[in-house]
């Protein structure tokens, strides 16, 4: 474990234990405790990363490898947005309100554990904790769709865990230990890498299933669509990214894809990345449901991260990490907006919606900012991460991949334009007539995230110095 960030794991866990007792007679205490915990953590992180002395020294003395700090920041940010949104979104008479917040905080703690782990077994333990909290969170409202999504998620992630364990066993047999450091040292030596790569490939397969990359994406749209509305923002924004994609990026750095020691694995990962960009984007074009379309778009965006991780050069890894962070910002906005639409208009079926921009202007315009960032329109933050990924591909001589990634970026813009026209623009339908704008607290998380998207895009040079430090540290 990375000791410097241990407090960010333990404090939410402690708060999660405390909430059921504190909120026994006053359910509102649960909202307050969860929000205060995450807000305090976020303020602490901001001070850790953005204090004047840290900026003056160009982030030279960051704790740990910098990547975990950035991702803990993303986790707390999305967690705070979701808890703040839930505080006003949940039904007053939801019977298990304290349990809901406890589970959210445990999942934040487990994600922190995932990104600060330094060996594969710790990673596995926290990924399992995260999966169990997700099953429970998806079924919060006890709907048909929620239970169905959770069951599909369960039956695909559990065999993936078994594959990861077999991979761990083979790694132990050939390497003698499970720490990241040993694998890194082994891969930078000249010993033939055969069986170790096989073990790593099994672990990677497990994490590919968990992150919903295309041949194994069956559970992703169902789980996101069926989940309770704020939970789907939590799941799509951060949970599956941390439990699957983060591990893939970590493996890419440990297996040293950039010096070609595990060439076959690297090529496989890049191919799956491109496949998932293509299939996700094309499937998103023909969706009828708002949330399901966002889920397919999420698969497509994960494809970009996996593609960059498969390439594994320093520039590609900067792009992958940045796109992971950006994905957390824009997907949270879009899913929270879909929750607002569901609350206000009573449906997420795109054929029944239309003309919501007149009655819900704030929701409409925050969606526009988020979708332009997803499609990679300058100067928003999504543009820079996609640019880095495509540049890295071009630089390594993979012109076909670069051109295809660029083309599907245009398809992204196309399906989001279709979505925007069907849901927010166009003629008012019957469902849109009686749908007022949601209250200000429900809009606040989306507006804050939009501010972040614009700010990261405009202040990109500063953020790039940070990311360069991260990439240098995780590759050496």
């Amino acid at each position: 474990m990375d000791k410097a960030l241990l407090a960010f794991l333990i404090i939410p866990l402690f708060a999660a234990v405390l909430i059921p007792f504190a909120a026994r007679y006053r359910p509102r205490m649960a909202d307050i405790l969860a929000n205060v915990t995450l807000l305090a953590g976020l303020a602490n992180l901001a001070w850790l990363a953005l204090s004047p002395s840290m900026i003056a020294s160009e982030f030279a003395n960051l704790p740990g490898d910098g990547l975990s700090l950035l991702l803990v920041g993303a986790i707390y940010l999305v967690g705070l947005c979701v808890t703040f949104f839930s505080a006003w979104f949940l039904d007053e008479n939801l019977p298990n309100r304290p349990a809901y917040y406890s589970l959210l905080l445990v999942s934040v703690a487990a994600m922190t554990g995932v990104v600060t782990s330094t060996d594969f077994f710790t990673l596995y333990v926290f990924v399992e904790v995260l999966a169990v909290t997700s099953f429970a969170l998806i079924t919060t409202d006890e709907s048909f769709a929620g239970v169905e999504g959770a069951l599909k998620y369960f039956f695909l992630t559990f065999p993936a865990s078994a594959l990861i364990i077999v991979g761990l066993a083979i790694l132990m047999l050939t390497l003698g230990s499970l720490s990241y450091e040993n694998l890194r040292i082994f891969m930078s030596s000249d010993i033939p890498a055969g069986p170790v790569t096989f073990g790593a490939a099994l672990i990677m397969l497990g994490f590919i299933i968990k992150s919903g990359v295309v041949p194994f994406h069956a559970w992703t749209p169902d789980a996101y669509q069926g989940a309770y509305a704020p939970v789907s923002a939590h799941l799509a924004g951060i949970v599956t990214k941390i439990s699957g994609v983060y591990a893939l990026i970590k493996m890419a750095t440990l297996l040293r894809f950039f010096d070609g020691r595990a060439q076959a694995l690297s090529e496989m990962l890049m191919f799956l990345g491109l496949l998932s960009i293509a299939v996700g984007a094309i499937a998103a074009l023909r969706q009828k449901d708002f949330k399901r379309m966002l889920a397919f778009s999420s698969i497509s965006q994960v494809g970009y991260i996996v593609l960059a991780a498969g390439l594994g050069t320093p520039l590609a890894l900067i792009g992958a990490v940045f796109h992971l962070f950006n994905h957390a910002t824009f997907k949270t906005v879009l899913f929270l907006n879909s929750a607002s639409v569901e609350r206000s208009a009573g449906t997420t079926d795109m054929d029944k919606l239309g003309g919501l921009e007149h009655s819900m202007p704030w929701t409409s315009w925050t969606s526009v900012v988020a979708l332009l960032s997803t499609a990679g329109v300058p100067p928003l933050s999504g543009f820079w991460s996609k640019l880095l990924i495509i540049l890295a591909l071009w630089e390594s001589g993979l012109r076909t991949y670069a051109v295809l990634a660029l083309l599907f970026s245009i398809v992204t813009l196309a399906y989001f334009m279709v979505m925007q026209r069907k849901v927010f623009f166009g003629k008012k339908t019957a469902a849109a007539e009686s749908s007022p704008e949601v209250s200000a607290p429900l809009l606040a998380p989306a507006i804050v995230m939009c501010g972040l998207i614009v700010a990261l895009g405009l202040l990109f040079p500063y953020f790039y110095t940070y990311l360069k430090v991260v990439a240098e540290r995780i590759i050496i």
Partner: protein
Amino acid sequence: MSSFAMEWYLIALLMFIGFYCMLVSRSIVRQLVGLEIVSKAAMLALISAGYWSNNLVFAQALLITMIVIEVVVVAAGLALLVKNFRLHGSADIWKLDSLKG
């Protein structure tokens, strides 16, 4: 046959049985049983790896942790199963098809 090969043969066989059980059965309960067999095979793989790489103590420690996790995951799975049975009145996996597109 050496005992190393024997162990891994058994592991592969168990894993195949588990996946076969998952593939052919329609009932969610049977699928859960299949999953359990798969994960038991994975555990055997870990303990065998620990023995043959002289890391038995470490492997045992990992395995006990893993059993605890397993219990929690299975409890969550059974809870989902019961919830699904109460809502749908059946435990047939092929009837879970209300979400598609």
